[in-house]
């Protein structure tokens, strides 16, 4: 084994800031009441089990995987709704781009209807819209995909609760400790401050961190508007003291 192979690339993951991340129990979002652990989380420094993660090569991707306007459409057809580009970078807490990160995204159609067996909202399905896509970040951590802007939809929480327009994101970094699922919202949506799921976030800064901004510079005239959405994953420490005797 070469010396490079025996030297750990860096230290463990920086602990998650639980004062910033949402709590498990958030009664305004009713389903969390019986799905939240009551015991404290058990804290341990990450080990190889959390510092490694599966690799997804670009060969995984089909030609239309990042084009939701066309990836479920009949030939010559396209999904109905406001055409948008969503782009940004996946970064770590040090601001370094995260290359090779698999992003999966899913959303409702322009009328707020999901293509799912358990969804029963009366808004119509779009026969040319499936609602899922995926991509892998480039060397600098950048990504982009095309879709239609999803509509708000009602959900059985309070008597008149509506989700803001949103796109769900699932993100893989380089360590399983970075695994993250979140949601992207759209600048200026008046449903954002009304939503109990947004309401689990602990500060306006946290809400803003999940709100994509309209970018007219990246907007393609007569074609698609553009929204920028950066995603930040946990970073890793340096290795000092990693091998000290007591191990903690």
């Amino acid at each position, binding site marked *: 084994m070469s010396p490079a*192979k025996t030297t*750990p*690339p860096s230290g463990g993951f920086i602990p998650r800031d*639980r004062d910033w*991340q949402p*709590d*498990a129990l958030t009664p305004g979002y009713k*389903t*969390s*009441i*019986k*799905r*939240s*652990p009551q*015991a404290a*989380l*058990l*804290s*341990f420094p990450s*080990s*190889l*089990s959390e*510092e*490694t*993660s*599966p*690799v997804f090569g670009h060969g995984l991707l*089909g030609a239309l995987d990042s084009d939701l306007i066309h*990836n479920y459409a009949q030939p010559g057809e396209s999904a109905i709704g406001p055409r948008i580009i969503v782009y940004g970078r996946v*970064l770590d*807490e*040090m*601001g370094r781009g995260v290359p090779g990160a698999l992003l999966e995204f*899913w959303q409702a159609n322009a009328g707020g209807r*999901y*293509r*799912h*067996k*358990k969804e029963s909202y009366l808004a119509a399905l779009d026969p040319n819209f*499936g*609602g*899922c896509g*995926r991509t892998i970040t480039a060397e600098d951590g950048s990504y982009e995909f095309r879709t239609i802007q999803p509509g708000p939809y009602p959900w059985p929480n309070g008597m008149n609760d509506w989700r803001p327009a949103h796109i*769900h994101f*699932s993100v893989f970094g*380089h360590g*399983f*400790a970075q*695994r993250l*699922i*979140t949601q992207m919202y759209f600048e200026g949506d008046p449903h954002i401050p009304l939503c109990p*799921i947004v309401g689990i976030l602990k500060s306006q800064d946290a809400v803003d*961190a999940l709100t994509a901004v309209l970018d007219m510079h990246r907007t393609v005239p007569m074609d698609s508007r553009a929204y920028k959405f950066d995603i*930040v994953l*946990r970073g890793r420490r340096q290795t000092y003291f990693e*091998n*000290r*005797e*007591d*191990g903690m």
Partner: protein
Amino acid sequence: MVQKLDYLRESPSQTAGPYVHIGCTPNFTGIDIYSGDLGTVMKTGPVQGKEIVIKGIVFDGTGTPLRDAMIEIWQPDAAGLFASANETRGAADPNFTGWGRSPGDMTTGEFTFDTVKPGAVPWADGRTQAPHITAWIVARGINIGLHTRIYFEDEAEANAADPILSRIEHQNRIQTLLAKREGDGVYRFDIHLQGPTETIFFDI
């Protein structure tokens, strides 16, 4: 005013919601854009080591099975090596991905992983961790993914020496992390989100 630390903040988590399958296991819900669902096949050829099946159900605080959860596992091969870009100790079994993803059955909630028994992995100080699988649970009502570990009840000696299991104050809760033998190569690992039999979840 002292200097500022200029770290970025991790993106806040949000629930995966009830329709996580559309994005992560689309074929499972009838959307056939991709050729198959990622994570359903962990063995891409003949694998080294003991082949096992892990089954389980995620229960909420009322004892009701979750029928809309998504469970992911991440583990080393039988030799304790990860199929990861940052595995520096050697080459992992080329026919084993180490990563699995399972939606619970839409009626019963039961998830299944067709995998191999993991080998042991070192702790940072060189001690040996007992064989274990990292598990991650997301669902409607879960605001941030829950990390836990699947250990094996038939590895008593290794479990007793495990750096994490041996440090847990509530030793009576350790059994919540042990997969129970149901037959040759078949283990059950039920997950209880809340209540007296609550699974231990990690901040790791």
